[in-house]
Protein backbone atom coordinates (compact mmCIF):
# COMPACT_ATOMS: atom_id res chain seq x y z
CA UNK A 1 0.00 0.00 0.00
CA UNK A 2 2.25 2.69 -1.34
CA UNK A 3 1.27 6.34 -1.35
CA UNK A 4 -0.68 7.56 -4.36
CA UNK A 5 1.07 10.00 -6.67
CA UNK A 6 -1.31 12.73 -5.63
CA UNK A 7 -0.68 12.20 -1.91
CA UNK A 8 3.06 12.19 -2.48
CA UNK A 9 2.91 15.42 -4.49
CA UNK A 10 0.80 17.02 -1.78
CA UNK A 11 3.32 16.13 0.91
CA UNK A 12 6.32 17.07 -1.26
CA UNK A 13 4.73 20.45 -2.03
CA UNK A 14 3.99 21.12 1.63
CA UNK A 15 7.52 20.27 2.72
CA UNK A 16 9.07 22.34 -0.07
CA UNK A 17 6.94 25.37 0.85
CA UNK A 18 7.40 25.13 4.59
CA UNK A 19 10.98 23.94 4.92
CA UNK A 20 12.58 24.49 1.49
CA UNK A 21 13.41 20.79 1.36
CA UNK A 22 12.94 18.83 -1.85
CA UNK A 23 11.52 15.31 -1.62
CA UNK A 24 12.51 13.62 -4.85
CA UNK A 25 10.25 11.01 -6.43
CA UNK A 26 11.30 7.57 -5.19
CA UNK A 27 10.94 8.66 -1.57
CA UNK A 28 7.32 7.44 -1.37
CA UNK A 29 8.21 4.69 1.10
CA UNK A 30 10.11 7.11 3.26
CA UNK A 31 7.17 9.50 3.35
CA UNK A 32 4.87 6.65 4.27
CA UNK A 33 7.18 5.32 6.98
CA UNK A 34 7.50 8.73 8.58
CA UNK A 35 3.79 9.46 8.40
CA UNK A 36 2.54 6.16 9.82
CA UNK A 37 3.25 7.26 13.42
CA UNK A 38 1.78 10.73 12.72
CA UNK A 39 -1.43 9.24 11.30
CA UNK A 40 -1.70 7.02 14.34
CA UNK A 41 -1.14 9.93 16.69
CA UNK A 42 -4.01 11.95 15.20
CA UNK A 43 -6.31 8.94 15.21
CA UNK A 44 -6.48 8.27 11.48
CA UNK A 45 -6.81 4.65 10.38
CA UNK A 46 -4.08 4.97 7.75
CA UNK A 47 -1.72 7.43 6.11
CA UNK A 48 -4.05 7.55 3.11
CA UNK A 49 -6.99 8.53 5.32
CA UNK A 50 -4.88 11.08 7.20
CA UNK A 51 -3.72 12.74 3.97
CA UNK A 52 -7.23 12.66 2.49
CA UNK A 53 -8.59 14.45 5.55
CA UNK A 54 -5.96 17.11 5.57
CA UNK A 55 -6.33 17.81 1.84
CA UNK A 56 -10.09 18.14 2.27
CA UNK A 57 -9.81 20.30 5.38
CA UNK A 58 -6.38 21.91 5.83
CA UNK A 59 -5.23 21.80 9.44
CA UNK A 60 -2.14 23.86 10.37
CA UNK A 61 -1.28 21.62 13.33
CA UNK A 62 -1.36 18.49 11.23
CA UNK A 63 0.55 20.17 8.43
CA UNK A 64 3.24 21.11 10.88
CA UNK A 65 3.41 17.52 12.09
CA UNK A 66 3.96 16.34 8.52
CA UNK A 67 6.75 18.84 7.88
CA UNK A 68 8.34 17.99 11.19
CA UNK A 69 8.27 14.26 10.47
CA UNK A 70 9.92 14.68 7.08
CA UNK A 71 12.63 17.22 7.66
CA UNK A 72 15.40 15.29 9.33
CA UNK A 73 18.54 17.22 8.97
CA UNK A 74 21.65 16.44 7.01
CA UNK A 75 23.67 19.46 8.08
CA UNK A 76 27.10 18.96 9.58
CA UNK A 77 28.71 20.79 12.43
CA UNK A 78 31.47 23.17 11.28
CA UNK A 79 30.31 22.46 7.75
CA UNK A 80 33.15 22.72 5.21
CA UNK A 81 35.56 23.46 8.04
CA UNK A 82 37.58 26.12 6.17
CA UNK A 83 35.42 29.16 7.03
CA UNK A 84 35.67 28.29 10.72
CA UNK A 85 39.43 27.85 10.48
CA UNK A 86 39.76 31.15 8.61
CA UNK A 87 37.68 32.83 11.31
CA UNK A 88 39.74 31.50 14.17
CA UNK A 89 43.13 31.98 12.60
CA UNK A 90 42.75 35.19 10.63
CA UNK A 91 39.56 37.21 10.93
CA UNK A 92 38.82 36.94 14.65
CA UNK A 93 42.24 38.21 15.76
CA UNK A 94 41.68 41.24 13.47
CA UNK A 95 38.16 41.83 14.75
CA UNK A 96 39.29 41.46 18.35
CA UNK A 97 41.81 44.22 17.67
CA UNK A 98 39.20 46.43 16.03
CA UNK A 99 36.53 45.97 18.71
CA UNK A 100 38.80 46.42 21.73
CA UNK A 101 36.49 49.11 23.11
CA UNK A 102 33.08 47.50 22.76
CA UNK A 103 34.41 43.97 23.34
CA UNK A 104 31.40 42.61 21.58
CA UNK A 105 30.85 40.78 18.32
CA UNK A 106 27.62 40.16 16.45
CA UNK A 107 27.26 37.27 14.02
CA UNK A 108 24.42 36.34 11.72
CA UNK A 109 23.84 32.84 10.45
CA UNK A 110 21.41 33.45 7.59
CA UNK A 111 19.42 30.37 6.53
CA UNK A 112 20.50 28.50 9.64
CA UNK A 113 18.26 25.46 9.12
CA UNK A 114 18.11 23.37 12.32
CA UNK A 115 20.86 25.36 14.03
CA UNK A 116 24.13 23.51 13.48
CA UNK A 117 25.79 26.57 11.93
CA UNK A 118 24.94 29.20 14.57
CA UNK A 119 25.83 26.77 17.37
CA UNK A 120 29.11 25.89 15.61
CA UNK A 121 29.82 29.63 15.49
CA UNK A 122 28.97 29.88 19.19
CA UNK A 123 31.47 27.11 20.00
CA UNK A 124 34.10 28.85 17.84
CA UNK A 125 33.58 32.20 19.59
CA UNK A 126 33.36 30.66 23.04
CA UNK A 127 36.81 29.21 22.46
CA UNK A 128 38.40 32.12 20.62
CA UNK A 129 37.24 35.22 22.47
CA UNK A 130 39.32 36.54 25.36
CA UNK A 131 37.76 36.69 28.82
CA UNK A 132 35.41 39.64 29.29
CA UNK A 133 34.16 39.63 25.70
CA UNK A 134 30.56 39.10 24.66
CA UNK A 135 29.03 37.80 21.50
CA UNK A 136 25.59 37.56 19.99
CA UNK A 137 24.58 35.22 17.22
CA UNK A 138 21.35 35.57 15.29
CA UNK A 139 20.15 32.53 13.37
CA UNK A 140 17.48 33.12 10.75
CA UNK A 141 15.57 30.85 8.43
CA UNK A 142 12.53 31.09 6.22
CA UNK A 143 11.02 27.98 7.78
CA UNK A 144 9.10 28.32 11.05
CA UNK A 145 9.65 24.62 11.59
CA UNK A 146 13.43 24.95 11.34
CA UNK A 147 13.44 27.95 13.65
CA UNK A 148 11.45 25.99 16.20
CA UNK A 149 13.90 23.13 15.98
CA UNK A 150 16.97 25.35 16.15
CA UNK A 151 15.54 27.13 19.19
CA UNK A 152 15.08 23.82 20.97
CA UNK A 153 18.80 23.16 20.47
CA UNK A 154 18.30 19.40 20.59
CA UNK A 155 20.01 17.04 18.18
CA UNK A 156 19.69 13.34 17.49
CA UNK A 157 22.55 10.91 17.78
CA UNK A 158 22.93 10.81 14.00
CA UNK A 159 23.04 14.62 13.79
CA UNK A 160 25.58 14.77 16.60
CA UNK A 161 27.88 12.33 14.78
CA UNK A 162 28.26 14.72 11.83
CA UNK A 163 31.53 16.56 12.16
CA UNK A 164 31.35 17.53 15.82
CA UNK A 165 34.61 16.79 17.66
CA UNK A 166 34.04 14.53 20.69
CA UNK A 167 35.80 16.94 23.03
CA UNK A 168 33.33 19.66 22.08
CA UNK A 169 30.39 17.29 22.33
CA UNK A 170 31.13 16.52 25.97
CA UNK A 171 31.98 20.13 26.71
CA UNK A 172 29.11 21.99 25.08
CA UNK A 173 26.24 19.51 25.10
CA UNK A 174 24.30 17.51 27.62
CA UNK A 175 22.34 14.33 27.19
CA UNK A 176 18.56 14.77 26.96
CA UNK A 177 16.93 11.36 26.57
CA UNK A 178 17.68 10.09 23.07
CA UNK A 179 19.05 13.51 22.14
CA UNK A 180 21.84 15.92 22.97
CA UNK A 181 21.00 19.45 24.05
CA UNK A 182 23.23 22.49 23.59
CA UNK A 183 24.61 23.85 26.88
CA UNK A 184 22.78 26.87 28.37
CA UNK A 185 26.05 28.85 28.41
CA UNK A 186 26.07 28.76 24.59
CA UNK A 187 22.34 28.75 24.04
CA UNK A 188 21.86 32.09 25.76
CA UNK A 189 24.11 33.85 23.23
CA UNK A 190 22.11 32.62 20.25
CA UNK A 191 18.69 33.90 19.20
CA UNK A 192 16.52 32.85 16.30
CA UNK A 193 14.14 34.65 14.04
CA UNK A 194 12.06 33.77 11.00
CA UNK A 195 13.25 35.84 8.05
CA UNK A 196 12.75 35.95 4.30
CA UNK A 197 16.07 37.12 2.84
CA UNK A 198 14.48 38.22 -0.43
CA UNK A 199 12.04 40.62 1.29
CA UNK A 200 13.02 43.92 2.95
CA UNK A 201 14.72 43.04 6.24
CA UNK A 202 13.46 44.24 9.62
CA UNK A 203 15.69 46.73 11.43
CA UNK A 204 18.55 44.99 13.25
CA UNK A 205 21.83 46.27 14.71
CA UNK A 206 24.67 45.70 12.21
CA UNK A 207 26.76 42.53 12.12
CA UNK A 208 30.48 41.89 12.21
CA UNK A 209 30.26 38.59 10.38
CA UNK A 210 27.49 37.09 8.24
CA UNK A 211 27.39 33.43 7.18
CA UNK A 212 25.20 33.05 4.09
CA UNK A 213 26.24 29.70 2.76
CA UNK A 214 24.62 27.56 0.10
CA UNK A 215 21.62 29.87 -0.12
CA UNK A 216 22.35 32.01 -3.19
CA UNK A 217 22.63 28.88 -5.37
CA UNK A 218 18.85 28.50 -5.10
CA UNK A 219 18.09 32.00 -6.43
CA UNK A 220 18.12 33.64 -9.89
CA UNK A 221 20.54 36.51 -10.52
CA UNK A 222 18.08 39.28 -9.66
CA UNK A 223 17.16 37.65 -6.38
CA UNK A 224 20.84 37.03 -5.60
CA UNK A 225 21.46 40.75 -6.13
CA UNK A 226 18.56 41.70 -3.84
CA UNK A 227 19.77 39.37 -1.09
CA UNK A 228 23.38 40.60 -1.31
CA UNK A 229 22.23 44.22 -1.21
CA UNK A 230 20.01 43.52 1.82
CA UNK A 231 22.87 41.80 3.60
CA UNK A 232 25.33 44.57 2.69
CA UNK A 233 23.17 47.06 4.58
CA UNK A 234 23.38 44.88 7.68
CA UNK A 235 27.15 44.49 7.55
CA UNK A 236 29.49 46.77 9.45
CA UNK A 237 31.90 48.64 7.14
CA UNK A 238 34.76 46.35 8.16
CA UNK A 239 32.59 43.25 8.57
CA UNK A 240 32.86 39.95 6.69
CA UNK A 241 30.53 37.86 4.60
CA UNK A 242 31.05 34.13 4.08
CA UNK A 243 29.38 32.41 1.14
CA UNK A 244 29.26 28.73 0.18
CA UNK A 245 32.27 27.31 -1.66
CA UNK A 246 30.41 27.38 -4.98
CA UNK A 247 29.05 30.90 -4.53
CA UNK A 248 30.42 34.38 -5.20
CA UNK A 249 29.42 38.04 -5.33
CA UNK A 250 31.50 38.52 -8.46
CA UNK A 251 29.42 39.54 -11.43
CA UNK A 252 26.38 40.01 -9.20
CA UNK A 253 27.13 42.79 -6.77
CA UNK A 254 30.15 45.06 -7.32
CA UNK A 255 30.00 46.50 -3.84
CA UNK A 256 31.82 43.49 -2.44
CA UNK A 257 35.41 42.42 -2.86
CA UNK A 258 36.77 38.93 -2.38
CA UNK A 259 39.61 38.45 0.09
CA UNK A 260 41.57 35.24 0.52
CA UNK A 261 41.15 34.00 4.09
CA UNK A 262 43.11 30.87 4.92
CA UNK A 263 42.15 28.21 2.40
CA UNK A 264 38.88 29.87 1.52
CA UNK A 265 37.54 33.31 0.61
CA UNK A 266 35.52 35.88 2.50
CA UNK A 267 33.87 39.04 1.18
CA UNK A 268 33.78 42.55 2.48
CA UNK A 269 32.34 45.85 1.35
CA UNK A 270 34.65 47.72 -1.03
CA UNK A 271 34.58 50.90 0.98
CA UNK A 272 36.03 48.88 3.86
CA UNK A 273 39.27 49.68 5.56
CA UNK A 274 41.25 46.82 7.13
CA UNK A 275 39.68 45.90 10.46
CA UNK A 276 42.88 46.63 12.33
CA UNK A 277 42.80 50.30 11.34
CA UNK A 278 39.05 50.79 11.33
CA UNK A 279 37.56 53.78 12.99
CA UNK A 280 35.05 53.07 15.63
CA UNK A 281 32.25 51.42 13.68
Amino acid sequence: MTLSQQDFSFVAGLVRREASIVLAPGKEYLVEARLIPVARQVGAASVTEFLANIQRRPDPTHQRMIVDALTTNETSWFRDREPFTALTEQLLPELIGARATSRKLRFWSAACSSGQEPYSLAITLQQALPAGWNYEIVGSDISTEMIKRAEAGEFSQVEINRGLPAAQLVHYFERAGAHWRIAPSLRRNVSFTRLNLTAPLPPMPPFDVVFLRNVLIYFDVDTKRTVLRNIGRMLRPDGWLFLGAAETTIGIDDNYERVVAGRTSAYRLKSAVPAGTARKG
Partner: protein
Amino acid sequence: MSHVQAILIDDSRAMRLILRRIVGQIGFDAVEAEDGQAAIDLLNSMEKPPELALIDWNMPNMNGLEFVTAVRKEPKYREMTLVMVTTESEQSQIVRALAAGAHEYVIKPFTAGAMIEKLALLGLVPQGASS
Protein backbone atom coordinates in the same frame (compact mmCIF):
# COMPACT_ATOMS: atom_id res chain seq x y z
CA MET B 1 54.34 -6.44 2.32
CA SER B 2 52.79 -3.05 1.73
CA HIS B 3 52.12 -0.72 4.62
CA VAL B 4 48.72 -1.05 6.30
CA GLN B 5 47.18 2.24 7.46
CA ALA B 6 44.32 1.07 9.68
CA ILE B 7 43.47 -1.56 12.26
CA LEU B 8 39.79 -2.33 12.80
CA ILE B 9 38.98 -3.77 16.21
CA ASP B 10 35.44 -5.06 16.69
CA ASP B 11 34.01 -8.44 17.67
CA SER B 12 31.44 -8.15 14.88
CA ARG B 13 32.70 -9.22 11.49
CA ALA B 14 29.87 -7.23 9.89
CA MET B 15 31.01 -4.06 11.60
CA ARG B 16 34.65 -4.66 10.62
CA LEU B 17 33.50 -5.05 7.04
CA ILE B 18 31.56 -1.80 7.12
CA LEU B 19 34.60 -0.04 8.57
CA ARG B 20 36.86 -1.63 5.96
CA ARG B 21 34.68 -0.27 3.17
CA ILE B 22 34.74 3.20 4.69
CA VAL B 23 38.49 3.47 5.29
CA GLY B 24 38.93 2.04 1.78
CA GLN B 25 37.21 5.19 0.51
CA ILE B 26 40.11 7.26 1.82
CA GLY B 27 42.65 4.83 0.41
CA PHE B 28 43.50 2.99 3.62
CA ASP B 29 44.30 -0.73 3.70
CA ALA B 30 43.25 -2.39 6.92
CA VAL B 31 43.89 -5.36 9.17
CA GLU B 32 41.25 -6.67 11.56
CA ALA B 33 41.16 -7.92 15.14
CA GLU B 34 38.18 -9.22 17.06
CA ASP B 35 39.13 -7.95 20.49
CA GLY B 36 41.65 -5.72 22.22
CA GLN B 37 44.11 -8.50 23.03
CA ALA B 38 44.11 -9.81 19.48
CA ALA B 39 44.72 -6.25 18.30
CA ILE B 40 47.73 -5.83 20.59
CA ASP B 41 49.18 -9.14 19.38
CA LEU B 42 48.64 -8.09 15.79
CA LEU B 43 50.22 -4.67 16.34
CA ASN B 44 53.25 -6.28 17.96
CA SER B 45 53.75 -8.40 14.86
CA MET B 46 53.68 -5.41 12.53
CA GLU B 47 56.81 -3.68 11.38
CA LYS B 48 55.23 -0.23 11.34
CA PRO B 49 52.09 0.60 13.30
CA PRO B 50 49.06 1.80 11.32
CA GLU B 51 48.07 5.46 11.37
CA LEU B 52 44.56 4.72 12.56
CA ALA B 53 42.80 2.36 14.96
CA LEU B 54 38.98 2.14 15.00
CA ILE B 55 38.00 0.54 18.28
CA ASP B 56 34.75 -0.95 19.56
CA TRP B 57 34.19 -0.69 23.31
CA ASN B 58 32.37 -3.84 24.37
CA MET B 59 34.38 -6.88 23.28
CA PRO B 60 35.33 -10.15 24.97
CA ASN B 61 38.83 -10.66 26.48
CA MET B 62 40.05 -7.08 26.34
CA ASN B 63 37.61 -4.25 25.79
CA GLY B 64 38.25 -1.09 23.80
CA LEU B 65 38.91 1.14 26.78
CA GLU B 66 41.52 -1.29 28.12
CA PHE B 67 43.07 -1.42 24.65
CA VAL B 68 43.33 2.38 24.46
CA THR B 69 44.86 2.53 27.93
CA ALA B 70 47.40 -0.17 27.07
CA VAL B 71 48.37 1.37 23.72
CA ARG B 72 48.78 4.85 25.20
CA LYS B 73 51.51 3.49 27.50
CA GLU B 74 53.63 2.41 24.52
CA PRO B 75 55.74 5.19 22.98
CA LYS B 76 55.99 3.30 19.70
CA TYR B 77 52.23 3.79 19.15
CA ARG B 78 52.30 7.50 19.91
CA GLU B 79 51.57 8.48 16.32
CA MET B 80 48.58 6.18 16.02
CA THR B 81 45.19 7.95 15.96
CA LEU B 82 42.68 6.16 18.19
CA VAL B 83 38.97 6.43 17.45
CA MET B 84 36.34 4.72 19.57
CA VAL B 85 33.43 3.38 17.49
CA THR B 86 30.77 2.18 19.88
CA THR B 87 27.18 2.25 21.07
CA GLU B 88 28.39 3.54 24.44
CA SER B 89 27.03 7.06 24.29
CA GLU B 90 26.71 8.32 27.82
CA GLN B 91 28.58 11.56 28.33
CA SER B 92 30.63 10.04 31.16
CA GLN B 93 31.77 7.18 28.91
CA ILE B 94 32.95 9.56 26.19
CA VAL B 95 34.85 11.55 28.79
CA ARG B 96 36.47 8.35 30.09
CA ALA B 97 37.58 7.30 26.62
CA LEU B 98 39.04 10.73 25.82
CA ALA B 99 40.81 10.81 29.18
CA ALA B 100 42.30 7.38 28.49
CA GLY B 101 43.77 8.75 25.26
CA ALA B 102 41.20 8.25 22.50
CA HIS B 103 41.36 11.07 19.95
CA GLU B 104 37.84 10.85 18.65
CA TYR B 105 34.58 9.11 19.30
CA VAL B 106 31.96 7.89 16.84
CA ILE B 107 28.66 6.62 18.15
CA LYS B 108 26.93 3.67 16.49
CA PRO B 109 24.89 3.82 14.36
CA PHE B 110 26.93 6.05 12.06
CA THR B 111 26.71 6.73 8.34
CA ALA B 112 29.73 6.37 6.06
CA GLY B 113 29.63 10.13 5.55
CA ALA B 114 29.75 10.84 9.26
CA MET B 115 32.73 8.52 9.74
CA ILE B 116 34.63 10.16 6.89
CA GLU B 117 33.90 13.59 8.36
CA LYS B 118 35.41 12.45 11.64
CA LEU B 119 38.50 11.11 9.86
CA ALA B 120 38.76 14.43 8.03
CA LEU B 121 38.66 16.22 11.39
CA LEU B 122 41.65 14.15 12.39
CA GLY B 123 43.53 15.15 9.26
CA LEU B 124 43.42 11.62 7.85
CA VAL B 125 41.49 12.35 4.68
CA PRO B 126 43.66 13.36 1.74
CA GLN B 127 42.31 16.35 -0.21
CA GLY B 128 39.60 15.29 -2.61
CA ALA B 129 39.34 11.76 -1.27
CA SER B 130 36.15 12.31 0.70
CA SER B 131 32.85 11.58 -0.95
